[in-house]
C-alpha cells in the first residue's frame, strides 16, 4: 500500500516536472531598476508634482514598460497592513505592477531571510515596515540587494536622529500632541463644564518602538503643558503584545486601581490598544468618565460603520491610501530610474535628515466627519 502511494506521488511529480520543463523559460527582461539606477549628479525631485495625498507620475508610461514585481513586507498581522495590501492591489492596474504580500508573523529574522529570498527571485522593489528592533540589520540587508525600497510607517534613523531611509509615515510626537490637544479642546462637549483638575491621563506606549514611543511622548508632553498638575499614568504594552488584549489588561488594571480619579483622557498610540481600552471601560461601566482617542482610524471607522457610539470618540484619521499612494508612487519612480532615495521627496525633507520622512497629512475625525474625510482621500488617490 505504502509503495503504491509513493509510486503514485512520484509518477505525478515526474509528469508535472516534465510538463513544467517543456515550458519556455522566460528570459528576464533587462530591469530598468538595475540599468537606470542614476549615478550622476543630483537628480531633480520628480515628486514635486504630487497631489494632496502624494500621487504623482514618474513621467514613464506604465503600459510601456514591464510589470514590476513589488513585495509588501510587514512584521505582524494588523488591519492596517492588510488594508495597505488591498490598496496596493487596487493600484496595480494604474501603475502596472504586481504585489506579493509577506507577513513575518512577528519574526524579524524570518523577515530578513525572506527579503533575501525575494531578492533572488527578480523582485523589482520593496515596500517594507522596518521593525525598530533590528532596523540597522534590515536596512543593511535591503541595501545589499541593490533593489529600490521604501520604508512604511516606522522611520529609520541614525544615532543623531537623522532619517536614513525614505519613509512614509506620520510624525509621532506631533501625532501624540494632536490627539491630546483634541481631547482637551472637546471634553466639554461630552462632560459639560467639569473641573479640569479632576482629569487624569492614561497614556499608552509601546516603548521598544521608536514611533509609538514618540506618540506617547507627544501626548504626555502636551497633557503636562495643558494640565500641569494633574495625575498621569503610563500603560506600556511591552509587557504584553501589540494587541487588543494587552490594551484591555492594562486599562482595566489602571482604571480599577484608581477610583479617586473622576475623569480620564486616554490617547492611544495604537488603535488596538484603544480598542482594548474601550472594552475595558465598557466592562467597568465607566463610559461616562473616559474619553478615548487614538492614532489611526481603521478599526474605529469600521466600528462607526456598524453603529458604534461609545466613549472611543475620535481618532487621528489616516486613510490606508495615504500610506499606500506616496509609497508606491515613490517606489515606481525609483524603479523607473526617475528618482533615487536621495532625490525622492527632497523638497519635503526636514533639516538634518539624510533621506525624507514623508509625513502624511492627517486630521482628527469623529463619527460625524470621518466619511467626508475618507471620500476626499479616495477622490485624490488616482483610482
Amino acid at each position, binding site marked *: 500500500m505504502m509503495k503504491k502511494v509513493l509510486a503514485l506521488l*512520484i509518477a505525478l*511529480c515526474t509528469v508535472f*516536472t516534465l510538463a513544467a520543463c517543456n515550458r519556455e523559460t*522566460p528570459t528576464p527582461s533587462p530591469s530598468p531598476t538595475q540599468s537606470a539606477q542614476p549615478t550622476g549628479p543630483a537628480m531633480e525631485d520628480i515628486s514635486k508634482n504630487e497631489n494632496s495625498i502624494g500621487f504623482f507620475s514618474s513621467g514613464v508610461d506604465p503600459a510601456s514598460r514591464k510589470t514590476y514585481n513589488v513585495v509588501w513586507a510587514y512584521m505582524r498581522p494588523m488591519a492596517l497592513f492588510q488594508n495597505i495590501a488591498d490598496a496596493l492591489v487596487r493600484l496595480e492596474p494604474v501603475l502596472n505592477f504586481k504585489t506579493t504580500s509577506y507577513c513575518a508573523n512577528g519574526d524579524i*529574522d524570518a523577515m530578513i*531571510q525572506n527579503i533575501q529570498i525575494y531578492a533572488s527571485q527578480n523582485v523589482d522593489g520593496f515596500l517594507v515596515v522596518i521593525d525598530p*528592533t*533590528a532596523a540597522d540589520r534590515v536596512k543593511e540587508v535591503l541595501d545589499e540587494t541593490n533593489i529600490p525600497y521604501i520604508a512604511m510607517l516606522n522611520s529609520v534613523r541614525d544615532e543623531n536622529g537623522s532619517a536614513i531611509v525614505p519613509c512614509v509615515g506620520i510624525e509621532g510626537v506631533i501625532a501624540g500632541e494632536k490627539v491630546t490637544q483634541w481631547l482637551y479642546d472637546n471634553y466639554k462637549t461630552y462632560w459639560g463644564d467639569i473641573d479640569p483638575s479632576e482629569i487624569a491621563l492614561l497614556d499608552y506606549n509601546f516603548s521598544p518602538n521608536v514611533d509609538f514611543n514618540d506618540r506617547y511622548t507627544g501626548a504626555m508632553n502636551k497633557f503636562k503643558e495643558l494640565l500641569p498638575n494633574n495625575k498621569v499614568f503610563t500603560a506600556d504594552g511591552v509587557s504584553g503584545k501589540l494587541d487588543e488584549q494587552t490594551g484591555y489588561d492594562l486599562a482595566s488594571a489602571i482604571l480599577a486601581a484608581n477610583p479617586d480619579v473622576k475623569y480620564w483622557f486616554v490617547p492611544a498610540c495604537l488603535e488596538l490598544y484603544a480598542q482594548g481600552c474601550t472594552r475595558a471601560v465598557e466592562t467597568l461601566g465607566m463610559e461616562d468618565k473616559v474619553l478615548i482617542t487614538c492614532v489611526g482610524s481603521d478599526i474605529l471607522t469600521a466600528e462607526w460603520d456598524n453603529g458604534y457610539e461609545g466613549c472611543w470618540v475620535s481618532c487621528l484619521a489616516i486613510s490606508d491610501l495615504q500610506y499606500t499612494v506616496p509609497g508606491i508612487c515613490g517606489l515606481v519612480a525609483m524603479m523607473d530610474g526617475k528618482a533615487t532615495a536621495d532625490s525622492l521627496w527632497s523638497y519635503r525633507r526636514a533639516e538634518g535628515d539624510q533621506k525624507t520622512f514623508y509625513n502624511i497629512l492627517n486630521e482628527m475625525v469623529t463619527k460625524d466627519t470621518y466619511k467626508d474625510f475618507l471620500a476626499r482621500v479616495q477622490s485624490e488617490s488616482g483610482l
Partner: protein
Amino acid sequence: METLKKYFKSNTFTLTILLILIVAFFWAASPGRSYLSLINVTNILNSMVLFTLFAIGEALLIISGSVDLSPGYIGTASGALMTAVLANTGLPWFVALLLGLALGCVFGLINALLVNELGFQAFIATLTVGSFVAKGFAYILVDGKVIPIKNRVIVWIGTGRLFGIVPFTVILSLLLILIYGIILAKTVFGRTIYLCGGNSQAARLAGLNPRRLSYILFANSGVLGALAGILYDARLKSGNLDGTNNYAFPAVTAVILGGVSFGGGTGNMFGCFLGLLIINSFNNGLTVMGVTPYWQSVASGVLLLLALTLDYLANRRTKRIKVRRTVEA
C-alpha cells in the same frame, strides 16, 4: 545490501522521497528554475540554522522520554544577557558570550531540578521556567528596550560568510548536528539515551542513571537554546525582546516529522535534519511562488499532516509484517 534494505524500509526513506518531491515541485514551478540556485539553497540552509540548534536539544530530550518547551525563551534571555554585558560593561566579547551560554545552562539545570527532584511534569516545568521566568528575565536585562550590538566579532559570528558565500552560522549548525548525530548513533552515551527513553525502569535496573542523564540533557538543551538566542541577536545586531521565544515549537514539529517518537526511545539526527530540511524547503518554496502568508501557514500544516500520515502507514505496515512473522513462527 542489508543496510540499503533497512534504509528503504525506514522512516528516513519516506522523508527522503517527500523531500525530493517537494524540491522537484518547487524547482519546476519557481520562476526561472531559481529554486535550486546557489543563493536560494543558501537561503534555505540559513533559515534552518536556529531551528537546527533547538531541534538537536529537543531530539535528545524527546528520545530520552522528556520534552523541553523553554529553550526559545532561554535563548532570548541569554541573548539579552550577552547584549547587556556588551553594552554596559567593558568585558570582552567572549566573556559576554560565555555568560550567555552559562545562563542557558543554569536555566536547563533549573528545569532538570524541577522535573527530577520536585516531580514536575516536564511540560509544565519547562513552560513555566521559559514563558515566565526566562521571558521576564530578558525584559529586566535590557530594561524593556532594544540594545544595539556593536561588537564586530559578535556581529561577524551572526552575519559573516565563509568565502563570501556560506554563512558561518550555517556551517556551525551543520557541524553541530553532525557531531550530535555521531554521539547519538555511535557512543555509549547515545545508547544510554535510547535505553532510558525506551524503558527508564529497565535502564535503571541495568545500572544506568536516568536522573543524571536528564540533568545533562536539560542543561544541553539550555545551552543550545542560549546559543541560538545569541546567534539570533548577533544576526540582527541587537538584543531583542521577543527574540527566539517562538522557535521551540516549530523545532519540536521538525523533530517529530523527522521520526522521533514522543514515546521516546526512537529517532535519529539524520531524520531530524530531513524534517528541518523539508519544513524549510517547503516554506521557502511557498515564498518563492508568492503564496500569501496566511495560506503558507495552512499549507505547512497540511504538509505536516501528510508526512505524519505516511509515517503512520509505514509503521502500521511494519507492525503487521512483524505480527504475521510471529504468528508464522
